[in-house]
């Protein structure tokens, strides 16, 4: 059993037309035991910038907290909300600092550029290699299942309702093929002036 499978998770982010979506499962388990079924994996980093963390939950919490620390100081000094590209560099730097004793958690970033409103998604490995995605980014124990599902459902220029359908179906069906993820799902649809959070009913196993 690998450390990445200790807690389990399913995370996906997708781009649409002037919107992005980020979705996760809500199971928190310790190996085969499920502890809670309403676990929040998505963290808000800015009005249109969200991060979801996969992998070991304690590291997920720590990385999210450390990231918020750096982000707050950045925004206070620069007096402006952070640009997603810069945020990706911040994440990458934080993770690489632990190159030889890494955090066993990988973030997925989804957001809109604060000035242009352009959709932005990115994924990383546990030592900070950033991959800026053009269509979708997946992570977690159901990462590979999600890749396949997203490939089938994603099309360019989805509007927010089509995007919601695509990401929800990808997530629900992928997490059903993974015993470590599931028990519920949450989807955040991020648009320029509002963010909608939807909670999906999933198979409770």
């Amino acid at each position, binding site marked *: 059993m690998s450390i990445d499978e200790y807690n389990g998770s399913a995370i996906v982010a997708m781009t649409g037309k002037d919107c992005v979506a980020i979705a996760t499962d809500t199971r928190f388990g310790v190996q085969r035991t499920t502890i809670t079924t309403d676990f929040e994996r998505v963290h808000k980093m800015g009005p249109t910038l969200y991060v979801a963390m996969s992998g070991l939950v304690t590291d997920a919490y720590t990385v999210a*907290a450390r990231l*918020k*620390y750096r982000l707050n*100081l950045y925004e*206070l000094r620069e*007096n402006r909300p952070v640009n997603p590209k810069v945020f990706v560099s911040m994440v990458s730097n934080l993770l690489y600092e632990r190159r030889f004793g890494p955090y066993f958690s990988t973030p997925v970033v989804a957001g809109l550029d604060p000035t242009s409103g352009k959709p932005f998604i990115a994924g990383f490995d546990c030592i900070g290699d950033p991959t800026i995605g053009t269509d979708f980014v997946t992570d977690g124990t159901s990462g590979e299942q999600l890749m396949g599902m997203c490939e089938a459902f994603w099309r360019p220029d989805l509007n927010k309702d089509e995007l919601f359908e695509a990401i929800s179906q990808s997530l629900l069906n992928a997490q059903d093929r993974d015993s470590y993820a599931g028990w519920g799902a949450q989807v955040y649809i991020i648009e320029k002036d509002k963010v909608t959070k939807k909670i999906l009913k999933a198979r409770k196993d």
Partner: protein
Amino acid sequence: MSRRYDSRTTMFSPEGRLYQVEYAMEAIGNAGTCLGILAKDGILLACEKRITNKLLDEIFETEKLYRLSPNMVCSVAGITSDANTLVNELRLIAQRYQLNYQESMPCEQLVASMCDVKQAYTQFGGKRPFGVSLLYAGWDHHFGLQLYQSDPSGNYSGWKATCIGANNAQAISSLDSDYKSDMSLQEAIPLAIKVMYKIMDQNKLTAEKLEIATVTRTDEGTTEMTIIPRETVAELITKREQEIAQETQK
């Protein structure tokens, strides 16, 4: 005289004074005034800008007002470079607390932490104290809206209305007579203009010389600092001038 006791920051004089600290406060007494008023629905900070050369490029939003954390704001009076150092340190202190406790740092604790740092410069190290006084305005769930003042000695206290910088004594006596405990922000803003008008020496008070911000709680549960636009400040000053003209006519 007692000159031999004032070059060492860490020595008392025979009269029991710390000269370096007092000299730091002298430096602040020549700096731009900062006024703070605690109203029941918000806190008002009004600052006099000393640097108003028209060749200056206005890159920064504010000259004397700084955000310290999502729930605290401060204004400074004194040596600007010293102030920048303190503001950086305050921001770090607040974030370290947030990282450790996953909760915003309560206002008094932030002020007290900073004052402990300032006090260290008056007791050991051989370095001079910071030539800055600060007014802190913020909100926390223990005591709601709060206004604090700290000075180079490292002393701090909570206030309902106070003033630092040039002519602060005159401003405080003015506030003493006109401040009412359950003032609203709408009443506090003209009061601030009235006091600033009175103390601004021979120099005429104009909107370019004034920076006014209000710190309020929103319905969503966040603390916002809103800088009052220059046109509104200009209108308020004109209104005050008219009031004065009417009073002198009577």
